[in-house]
């Protein structure tokens, strides 16, 4: 079945398109920004704890490391689409409803936070332990080491990880859209797929590609700027 591309030439095509696109775009940005920020608020401390509690680090604690690691793994191995459904009761408790853009944020955060924890963990593990030992030899406390050594020394890697996380969250929001979250993903499915509007499908895909590309470029540029070696 072919698609009649002459539709693009009809009057008011682009104003109408903008009318449909812009709320979807804002919904996507809203979901991505809010859930990424919340996921970082939860994930960074978890990542830090995973690192410092590992053996041969500043606060080794096998029990904490293993327990937290297991919890993180459990959440990371659950497919997002399953998590979406399983978390409906929790979402309803927190947001009051299980449908809509804000409701989608709950499963997004719960699935992204463990991802953030692992990404942050791997960035912080790149900091050579010698530098941490030097700080210890000066009498630095664990908190000072986290704030003044671990995080600043890993900043470039953390920013690249932030770009990766944001891009993954964009992918998740498209799935969340499928179950009533709205956004560009929902638009692509509702109009593009279900109503055979190949043009809308294509435009949303192009838009998503542009967003992803933009985030990655900004992330890479920042990381390069902050790399002093």
């Amino acid at each position, binding site marked *: 079945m072919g698609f009649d591309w002459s539709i693009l030439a009809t009057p008011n095509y682009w104003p109408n398109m903008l009318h449909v696109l812009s709320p979807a775009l804002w919904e996507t940005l809203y979901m991505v920004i809010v859930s990424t920020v919340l996921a970082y608020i939860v994930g960074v401390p978890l990542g830090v704890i995973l690192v410092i509690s590992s053996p041969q680090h500043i606060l080794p604690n096998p029990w904490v490391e293993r327990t937290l690691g297991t919890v993180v793994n459990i959440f990371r191995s659950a497919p997002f689409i399953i998590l979406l459904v399983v978390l409906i009761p929790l979402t309803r408790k927190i947001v009051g409803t299980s449908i809509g853009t804000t409701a989608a944020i709950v499963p997004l955060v719960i699935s992204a936070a463990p991802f953030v924890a692992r990404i942050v963990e791997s960035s912080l593990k790149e900091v050579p332990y010698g530098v941490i030992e*030097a700080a210890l030899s*000066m*009498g630095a406390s664990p908190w*000072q080491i986290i704030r003044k*050594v671990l995080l*600043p020394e890993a900043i470039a890697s953390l920013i690249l990880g932030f770009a990766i996380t944001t891009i993954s969250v964009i992918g998740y929001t498209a799935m969340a859209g499928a179950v009533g979250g709205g956004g560009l993903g929902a638009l692509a499915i509702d109009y593009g797929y279900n109503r055979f509007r190949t043009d809308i499908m294509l435009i949303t895909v192009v838009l998503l590609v542009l967003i992803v590309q933009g985030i990655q470029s900004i992330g890479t540029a920042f990381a390069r700027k902050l790399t002093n*070696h």
Partner: protein
Amino acid sequence: MIKIEHLSKTYTSRKGDVIALEDISLEIAQGAIYGIIGLSGAGKSTLVRCLNRLEEPTSGTVLIDNQDIMKLSGKGLRQARQSIGMIFQHFHLLQSRTVAENIAFPLEIAGYKKKDIAKRVQELLPLVGLEDKADVYPSQLSGGQKQRVGIARALATQPKVLLCDEATSALDPQTTVSILNLLRDINQQFGLTIVLITHEMKVIKEICTDVAVIDASRIVEYGPVEQVFIQPQSTIAKEFISSVFPNELPGDLLRELATHPDSEIVRIHFLGSRASDPIIADLMKDCDIRANILYGSIDHLRSTLFGTLTLELQGSPEQLTKAHAYLSARGLKMEVVQNGI
């Protein structure tokens, strides 16, 4: 200043225990530059890291400035560490901070005020010769410059002790000398006690006042540098010394140089002003023997002359005995290399 008593460290693993340090006792005087030398794996790095408890000893005590380091924990230990500076083989600078910010780091940790930090950093930069590098990142510095930053950083909080963990091992010979000179200057200027570990006897020879030789987790020999260099007791100490003073010919080669088959070959060690005394002339005159110089070398230990002279002595047994007595009366250390055939 530092008193180490019966310090032991055993690493426990599933494969079995590994002894890193065994019953180490040492006393390090205020203002000393105390060198601890050993081959890799001898335990020297573990020893220096036990002094500020980067490594936890299994037993024993460490007193620094009469404070028992082993009894401290948490905040007390962190405060004690602020008065023990440390520099490392691989510098361990913060890559995300400039030179000035790296030097400021221990001051921030110790809770200095911003204004005081800036002032102290401005004092330290010229001390290590890096006035023009304040705003440069470590990645743009050479190895020697990085170690200078390390030294400035270690001195920032005005510690009483400076621990050097193979501080020159990653540097080329020329840079090593300049870093050692800097350490010596700091030692003399501030009376700072320096403990340095190394596998290079050259480092000991250049700046140390005292040396301890560590082998297979134990101290096998220690004392003032001059004493250990002139009269090394252990095989390992002798090997280390021959690495910096290799100019000794084996006995059979010396024998070939000798003119008389029945003569005696002796090696005399000089130290300090005795190196310039007219010993041989006096020896020949007073003991009525013939002395033939086979071989000689002169070098320095820190700023003291240090040398050996290998002589062929010809004379009757009585005259030779007299010559031995004459040399020991002059306080010279003499050894007979090969006695007749």
